[in-house]
């Protein structure tokens, strides 16, 4: 019945039962993957790094949305705005208080967390689509405040922020070194999210998602759990914003429009709800699609002639929509579910089930 693990691996005690990577092969593969991620910038060069760093940032944000929507089941259509809060927190702290990036990074998460908790409070009374609209309001309130509080946020002109300087002899103004920083933060956040999902709070989140009435009657404080989910998810969003914003050393309120918030949800569907792997896959697919759509534009010039210039803006939208619809029709549980199926059929190989 339970075929979630390779053949021939048994748990001899309850500590082994909690392990994520049981066989030496999987441990080696994980180590190789991490090493590969650190080696890859030496291979792909400047262009590759310019794709990989945003992927890292969006992965963190996607993990946050996975916690809110995938695990706790609370739809949030305002996630990009919380990312924006992270960006602006770093920019404001650097400009007015002279914070270094290192000090501003945790603050970006904490401020986003505080705002997230405030906007998560409606979740105590609302469910499903109604809550989705409450979070939609959060998006508009945040964007409105940022674009109109000109004296602090510089309005729609955006703000400049600086990357961390030299630390331990590593110069983070260099793109490659900054990628290493982003990757390390991503790895840490992934570790935190993975452990969250498999411990006490993670089970409580899934309990609230699957059956909130039963959860309340089974000793789980549903209100606190929902608000905590929003808080932690927005913490991730804030950190992701700080990492992403500092990469461009500039932040503008137009970078996190409503469409970004919705694409966040859309690509979470592509990646798959309720798994850490799904969040990462969603972020990777999103940014790769982004790059593909810009690559395709010159090719269409032959087909469309001068109109290609006007069509180019629509390409990314077209691509995004197509891929999300494809997944909704053919694999509504996302890449992560498909990946599990592949693993399962590989492990069972000669037999169909």
């Amino acid at each position, binding site marked *: *019945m*339970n075929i*979630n693990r390779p053949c021939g691996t048994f748990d001899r*005690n*309850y*500590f082994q*039962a*909690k392990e994520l990577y049981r066989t030496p092969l999987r441990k080696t593969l994980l180590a190789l993957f991490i090493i590969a991620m650190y080696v890859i910038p030496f291979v792909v060069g400047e262009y590759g790094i310019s794709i990989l760093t945003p992927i890292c940032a969006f992965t963190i944000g996607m993990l946050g949305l996975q916690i809110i929507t995938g695990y706790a089941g609370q739809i949030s259509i305002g996630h990009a705005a919380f990312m924006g809060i992270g960006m602006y927190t770093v920019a404001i702290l650097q400009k007015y208080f002279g914070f270094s990036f290192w000090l501003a990074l945790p603050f970006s998460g904490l401020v986003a967390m505080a705002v997230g908790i405030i906007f998560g409070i409606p979740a105590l009374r609302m469910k499903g689509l109604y809550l989705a609209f409450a979070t939609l309001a959060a998006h508009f309130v945040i964007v409105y405040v940022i674009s109109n509080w000109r004296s602090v946020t510089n309005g729609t002109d955006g703000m400049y922020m600086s990357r961390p300087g030299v630390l331990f002899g590593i110069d983070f103004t260099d793109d490659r070194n900054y990628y290493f920083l982003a990757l390390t933060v991503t790895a840490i956040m992934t570790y*935190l*999210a993975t*452990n*969250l999902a498999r*411990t*006490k*709070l*993670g*089970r*409580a989140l*899934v*309990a609230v*998602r*699957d*059956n909130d*009435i*039963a*959860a*309340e*009657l*089974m*000793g*789980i*404080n*549903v209100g606190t759990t929902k608000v*905590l989910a929003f808080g*932690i998810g927005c913490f991730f969003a804030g950190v992701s914003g700080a990492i992403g914003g500092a990469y461009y050393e500039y932040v503008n309120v137009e970078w996190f429009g409503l469409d970004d918030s919705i694409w966040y949800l859309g690509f979470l569907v592509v990646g798959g709800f*309720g798994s850490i792997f799904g969040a990462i896959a969603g972020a990777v697919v999103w940014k790769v699609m982004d790059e593909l759509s810009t690559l395709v534009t010159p090719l269409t010039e032959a087909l469309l002639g001068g109109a290609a210039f006007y069509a180019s803006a629509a390409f990314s939208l077209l691509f995004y929509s197509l891929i999300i619809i494809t997944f909704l029709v053919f694999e509504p549980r996302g890449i992560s579910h498909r990946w599990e199926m592949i693993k399962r059929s590989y492990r069972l190989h000669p037999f169909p089930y």
Partner: protein
Amino acid sequence: MRDITKKREQRYSYGLALLRECIEKKRLWTNNEDEKKAVLRVENIDLSFGDLRALNNVSVDVRGHEILAIIGPNGAGKTSLLNVISGFYRAQRGDIYFNEEKITRFSSHKIAERGICRTFQNIALYSGLTVTDNIIAGRHPHINYNFLTGMIYFPWANREEAYQRAIAEDIIDFLELEHVRGSVVGMLAYGLRKRVELGRALALEPRILLLDEPMAGMNVDEKEDMARFIIDINEFLKIPIVLIEHDMGVVMDIADRIFVLDFGNPIAEGSPEEIKQNQKVISAYLGTG
């Protein structure tokens, strides 16, 4: 680890040993003289939904470690009574005392933490989790670390997880769920899901167990299994069990006391023999056959 293993060895001779140990640490009543004492007192409960009177001046005691069956025709207010006890409905009038503590206005999760655990008429499991995780999720209030510790996964969080898993395995062994422990509950058969739900209620370290139709829709074998589990829980954990059931054969066999409701009104209370003879109960529910 050796500690846990040792406890596991003991289990084979005792049954639910780990869980019983957990409960006994917190038990308020200690000796057999107290068995007649009311653990849960429901006093003069009135509950209405608009003009509909669901419960009308209902008072009932649950004592020591007895099995109390609540019976009555459909819509008599049996489930409403359980919902009032577990804090899901708020009664308009009346009080509920649990171990002399007034719990009428407590929120549901606090009542559950006190040890009033229940199952549901329509299965209400966490369908996305596995059987083991469902049972460990039931232990939520008794897990001793906060979410930050869990996120960073300190060694003591790992030890705590292993300990909780040991207790969950204790329950899984007791309820004979070993073969499905890794399956997602959404895929399980109905009878098994009912059993998982009982397991989740057990994981909460119950000091009183409220079972809402645990045998509905089961065949004779499954009913016998469930009856055996209920009696065993009653014996091993020495806790009272409140049982709503429509199968009169089972009720008359396993219940120590029966409480009869009809359209929100309590009409009788007593031992199975008394209830069988009671003219009011016969006309309202049992019928003359």
